[in-house]
């Protein structure tokens, strides 16, 4: 098929939109931490852009989407983008240049490890983070992306539906986040000091950029302009609004005050949950998915607060639980009427769709937790993961980067 200018325009615009999500995340996280750690967490997000982009071109894309090796990972034939040119790759996206598909996928590879950062905030050495990032992107993200999305990937082979990354991106990051938070241990003063978000407008800015960029993430995953992209766009927006509203109301009833951070967090939970479903479900289903996201993720945060583990910015609750709900909801609400290339779900008479969905979810949780743990242990035993107590006290901005976020 020839290249379609409209499809390519949409995919390039979507790629730009997904890129801006990572700075969006940096502001979302940056606003939530204390002032003295603002630069450090933004830096970690920014480092994901720099490092993952570089290795994606060098070998990451090849590992994730290159010629299949046993359903598990791609080989290195496409390293350095060898053979990844400006003609379409019919298997992935028939009407846009292959490189457009490649760069769109690069943006997903960037943001996934960046999501983890919220869990390990305010206490990890930057050098250790960089090494973790490199290893995790290589040995966790690339294989899981291959399983689910690549031609020959084993989860894809089962017929699991994940339109834009509920498993690959969100469960994957949420699982690593949980392991990271538990293995690193609590921040100093956790449970005693207030540790209030230092800049709520930044949280809102981050949420806005995430929401804006997520249209590229989900509607761009149609890999073409037209009906499917439109449908994904619409359900993304709807689920997000409903989830934000749900969280706002539940937390208001529960705690007595309508929280702006709560509304933002709920919206992000909605974005997460609709992600895998976005190309397969209709608007009314998206309302249900959004409401579920707001409720389940809020409950997960309360559970975490009670258990007292220090997933500092709730990556597990929002991305892990939200992604899991979304992946299962895809199995419930999917409709062939929306996307003929998808499948019907439970509600449309195909209960069997739940099986590949559950397998995909379980495999991602398991693989990500185990390998993330191994990587963390290795780094901890060699160069060490955690900053010195004095650095934590004075803040990572000065302690690790010799640069303060704000100077009067």
């Amino acid at each position, binding site marked *: 098929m020839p290249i379609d200018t409209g499809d390519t325009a949409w995919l390039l615009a979507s790629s730009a939109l997904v890129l801006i999500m990572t700075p969006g995340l940096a502001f979302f996280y940056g606003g939530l931490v204390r002032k003295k750690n603002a630069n450090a967490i933004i830096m970690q997000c920014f480092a994901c852009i720099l490092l993952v982009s570089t290795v994606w071109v060098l070998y990451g894309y090849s590992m994730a989407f290159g010629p299949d090796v046993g359903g598990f990972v791609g080989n290195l034939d496409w390293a350095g983008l060898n053979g990844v040119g400006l003609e379409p790759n019919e298997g992935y996206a028939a009407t846009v240049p292959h490189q457009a598909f490649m760069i769109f996928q690069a943006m997903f590879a960037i943001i996934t490890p960046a999501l983890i950062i919220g869990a390990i905030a305010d206490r990890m050495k930057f050098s250790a983070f960089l090494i973790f990032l490199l290893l995790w992107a290589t040995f966790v993200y690339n294989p899981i992306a291959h399983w689910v999305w690549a031609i020959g990937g084993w989860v894809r082979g089962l017929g699991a539906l994940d339109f834009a990354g509920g498993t690959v991106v969100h469960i994957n990051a949420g699982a690593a986040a949980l392991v990271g938070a538990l293995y690193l241990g609590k921040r100093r003063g956790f449970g005693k000091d207030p540790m*209030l978000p230092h800049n709520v407008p930044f949280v809102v800015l981050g949420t806005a950029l995430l929401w804006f960029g997520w249209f590229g993430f989900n509607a761009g995953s149609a890999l073409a302009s037209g009906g499917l992209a439109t449908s994904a766009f619409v359900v993304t927006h709807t689920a997000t609004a409903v989830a934000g509203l749900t969280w706002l109301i539940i937390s208001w009833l529960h705690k007595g005050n309508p929280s702006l951070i709560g509304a933002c967090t709920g919206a992000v939970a909605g974005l997460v949950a609709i992600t895998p479903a976005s190309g397969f479900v209709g608007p009314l289903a998206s309302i249900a998915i959004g409401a579920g996201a707001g409720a389940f993720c809020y409950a997960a945060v309360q559970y975490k607060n009670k258990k007292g583990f220090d997933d500092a910015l709730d990556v597990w609750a929002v991305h892990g639980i939200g992604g899991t709900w979304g992946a299962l909801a895809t199995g419930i609400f999917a409709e062939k009427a929306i996307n003929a290339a998808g499948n019907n779900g439970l509600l449309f008479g195909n209960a069997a769709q739940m099986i590949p969905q559950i397998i995909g979810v379980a495999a991602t949780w398991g693989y990500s937790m185990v390998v993330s743990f191994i990587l963390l242990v290795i780094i901890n035993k060699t160069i060490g993961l955690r900053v010195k107590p004095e650095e934590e006290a004075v803040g990572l901005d000065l302690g690790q980067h010799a640069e303060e976020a704000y100077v009067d």
Partner: protein
Amino acid sequence: MLKVEAIIRQEKVNDVKNALSNAGFLGITVYDVKGRGRQKGYVLNFRGREMRVDLIAKTKIELVIDDKALDEVIKIIRENAVTGNIGDGKIFVSPVLDVIRIRTGDRGKEAI
């Protein structure tokens, strides 16, 4: 000479400041502080985790005056800062040994 430090509600700063200048007390120094007294703080939330913030934002007004002016200054501050509710604040009075105007080098009462 005396130094009067008044810790007051932020929303009263304008009134106090203007009343002082109307009465001829131009020289003042002002800064934001946080305080705890009998007023209970706020309970803030972060995703359902409650955190009591017992320090409340207040403003401190500092002015150095001649001993004779003390009662008048206290009266002005109280009249303009009082609401009758807990949290209205306090005034502290302490001794000052000397004042120097940097521009001219004047010292003592002349320099206030």
